[in-house]
């Protein structure tokens, strides 16, 4: 019965992921507010923001290409939704195949490219700066992130997320063997989501809102939705790769464990965005290539040589 429920509610995708994305945004903002000793937003805040954006007028500067600007958020939303389809939720996965980790990583890269193009199409100076910065940032975080993701894959001998999950049920959570890899993955995820210490492409005090400066109304709403869903998909992926869970017991318990792990990762993300200040783009590049990549390679060598 439980499996039926899962197929009914979780894997059609859109509704579940939109719900999770909005819930993520609320939990994240609330946690951030509590870290700063504020009250924080109401529970319906992300929903209200989204509906409000849809109710607003849709403007673009003269010279910007309308249909490109419309299609970019839709493409990136479709990409992250598709990526979410292949990620096991609480141990269930209907669409898994060998190598789906690579497909997921590829699909999760599309929004960054779309973000860059969005900056370029909407002619404003801040948008162009934000777009260029987002590409620079992409080159800094993507390699450590991939190195971190390949650790669990090599350890379990498979590039399918479901297989990695299964081998964790036997060996134990991979975060015990690869704590460094997990930290790299968190850093990479923060960079991917353009969250606070690495929000260089959309830094409010420097480039207004980055690529999205000139977007309004429905397009902006789709961008916000994309960001939220990208966050939740990234978090799900991280959990499947590094935490795992004992499979084969009651699905209720699995769901419980899964939700707990999701909350834990959100906690880590919010805490790091309230603790650290924003880096400069050159600092990020040198952090990425001088520290994170070598550390990632050492971690990977360790995994290969030890075989643990």
């Amino acid at each position: 019965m439980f499996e039926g429920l899962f197929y009914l509610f979780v894997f059609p995708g859109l509704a579940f992921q939109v719900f999770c994305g909005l819930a993520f945004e609320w939990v994240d903002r609330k946690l951030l507010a509590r870290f700063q000793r504020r009250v924080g937003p109401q529970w319906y805040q992300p929903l209200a923001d989204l509906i409000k954006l849809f109710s607003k007028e849709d403007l673009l500067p003269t010279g910007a290409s309308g249909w490109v600007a419309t299609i970019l958020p839709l493409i990136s939303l479709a990409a992250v939704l598709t990526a979410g389809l292949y990620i096991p939720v609480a141990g269930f996965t209907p669409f898994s195949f060998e190598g789906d980790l690579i497909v997921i990583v590829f699909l999760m890269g599309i929004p960054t490219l779309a973000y860059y193009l969005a900056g370029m199409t909407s002619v404003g100076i801040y948008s162009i700066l934000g777009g260029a910065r987002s590409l620079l940032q992409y080159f800094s975080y993507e390699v450590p992130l991939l190195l971190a993701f390949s650790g669990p894959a090599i350890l379990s001998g498979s590039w399918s997320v479901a297989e990695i999950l299964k081998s964790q049920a036997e060996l134990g959570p991979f975060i015990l063997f690869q704590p460094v890899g997990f930290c790299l993955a968190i850093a990479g995820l923060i960079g991917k989501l353009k969250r606070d210490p690495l929000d260089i492409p959309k830094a409010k005090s420097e480039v207004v809102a980055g690529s999205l400066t000139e977007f309004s109304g429905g397009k902006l709403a789709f961008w916000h939705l994309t960001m939220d869903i990208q966050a939740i998909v990234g978090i799900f992926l991280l959990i499947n790769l590094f935490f795992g869970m004992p499979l084969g017991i009651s699905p209720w318990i699995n769901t419980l464990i899964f939700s707990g792990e999701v909350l834990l990762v959100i906690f880590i993300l919010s805490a790091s965005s309230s603790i650290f200040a924003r880096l400069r783009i050159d600092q990020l590049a040198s952090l990425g290539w001088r520290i994170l990549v070598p550390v990632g390679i050492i971690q990977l060598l360790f995994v290969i040589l030890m075989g643990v």
Partner: protein
Amino acid sequence: MFEKMLNRTYRWAQKNSLWVLPFNTGGCNGCDIEILDLLTPRYDVERMGILAEASPRHADVLLCTGPVTYQTRDAIWQIYSQMPSPKWVVAVGSCGATGGVFTGSDTVLGGVDKVLPVDLYIPGCPVRPEAIIAGLIKLQEKIVKGAENG
């Protein structure tokens, strides 16, 4: 019937998610500092869904502080026309309302309503943060009742 429901949902969302764009039209910076207070833990307006945005295209409310000078007149109009409607304008401080202590200066045009359709005046020199919050709540009530400019 459906349209009515949709409108009510939109109103509810607009009420609960006011993104403000503070803009100094030529004041003494006193009111701007009081506006920044709103984001601090003591007043925290995010609990009412109010966020400060930096881009006019994301904003719903233009918070104008200070009198309009001849130099900012065109800029403020440009910013206002970049905001997507429905949009609202709030004049913060005595200067925003009438020109305040700067009245009669040969570089000052007068209150914000000389240039833009103002929805709400919040008096005070400088305005207390509590007054700004009270004013924004009044604006929320106005939105639910369905008044809009632009």
